[in-house]
């Protein structure tokens, strides 16, 4: 069975380490915060200018001056700091964030990512996504493996305008956990109950399946 959004977030959460500073994009990445293992602490960076994002506020705590990058009202966690957007992106661009998780429309075997624009249809802007993919060493892209119409999102060449060039190494889809090495997708793990043949069929870019492919542990 394909992973649910929650299961995808759970699998990504396994990549966290104690003491990680993490930037989570909107959508599935946001859910990762719910699955931080209890024996570790991570600190969430919100690119509008907050390190140490806390949970949503109660009705009493709500504060128009305290929001995250998704414009949602939030609180601060213990040890938080607040700063300007220039400082926030200095942090991001300078490679100080340990892990970035974000969604995408397409990824290709060259590590290119398209996530911000569908010409003629969706032109909302890249926000901080271009800075995030250019600045981080350690990025996990989360997305469904294929569109609703069954079209692969893992391509040999992205068709949409790029968010970043050659910057993606890891992709977690509802079907598989994949690493990009030397211009090829490498299947690391398949979702429980998902056939490797199905993953192959839905992966348009070249996919290498070694004998060490594991079933995901959710």
């Amino acid at each position, binding site marked *: 069975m394909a992973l649910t959004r929650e299961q995808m977030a759970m699998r990504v959460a396994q990549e966290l380490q104690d003491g990680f500073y993490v930037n989570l994009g909107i959508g599935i990445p946001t859910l990762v915060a719910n699955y931080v293992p209890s024996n570790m602490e991570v600190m969430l960076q919100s690119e509008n200018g907050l390190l140490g994002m806390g949970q949503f506020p109660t009705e009493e705590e709500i504060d128009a001056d305290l*929001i995250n990058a998704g*414009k949602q009202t939030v609180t601060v966690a213990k040890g938080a700091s607040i700063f*300007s957007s220039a400082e926030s992106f200095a942090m991001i661009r300078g490679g100080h964030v340990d892990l970035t998780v974000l969604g995408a429309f397409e990824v290709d075997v060259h590590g290119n990512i398209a996530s911000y624009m569908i010409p003629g249809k969706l032109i909302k802007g890249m*926000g901080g996504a271009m800075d995030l993919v250019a600045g981080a060493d350690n990025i996990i892209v989360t997305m469904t493996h294929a569109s609703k119409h069954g079209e692969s999102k893992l391509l040999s060449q992205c068709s949409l305008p790029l968010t970043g060039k050659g910057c993606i190494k890891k992709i977690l889809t509802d079907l598989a956990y994949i690493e990009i090495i030397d211009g090829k997708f490498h299947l690391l793990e398949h979702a429980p109950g998902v056939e490797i043949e199905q993953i192959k069929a839905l992966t348009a870019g070249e996919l290498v399946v070694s004998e060490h492919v594991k079933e995901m542990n959710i």
Partner: protein
Amino acid sequence: MSGFNKVVASYQEALAGLEDNMTIIAGGFGLCGIPENLIQEIKRKGTKGLTVVSNNCGVDDFGLGVLLKDRQIEKIIASYVGENAEFERQMLSGELEVVLTPQGTLAEKMRAAGAGIPAFYTATGYGTPVGEGKEVRTFNDRNYILEESIKGDFAIVKAWKADTYGNLIYRKTARNFNPMAATAGKITVVEAEEIVPAGELDPDQIHTPGIYVDRLIQGTFEKRIEQRTIRHSGEQ
């Protein structure tokens, strides 16, 4: 009265000299920390043909969105404009020129303008539509593009607490783009929730030194919330 007293008596005075076809740098992220009343004054003045540099463009009926509705903005330089239906309509119809700029690059362009740095290299946007037509250069085996600074004729800024000399403190994430915007205007206009006498703020805790501020006014703010997300007491 001291020559450092930046306080003006009215919003009209605060934006005196703002003319058609000028460039305005605005602080704020979404609807958070936006100079609400200065925007309303621009609406009232009816200034046209503006170039606006701001991370977002408000919503249809609040923030910079109100200037869109009145067709006062000709061009906008922003990173994200997804909250505004009128915006999308004007953009798709070609009435509004939009330069999408990555959020960090936008912040840095403002900072650079204020800091006398005409251009800098960044990896952000390399190989994407943002990098098209820009110089590419390699440092330590990585490719970067050249981005130039953006200066405004006016900068409009929202602070929390100010002293009469224009020293500013921002509150929580309402800080966002405001400190950089404050440095990037030929004339920087600030509205604050509170203005205290010079000397009352701790010099170590000032976010924007008064040297960047030309005019200052105390305002009252609606502080509209864009995404009201709450948890119920007891919920994790």
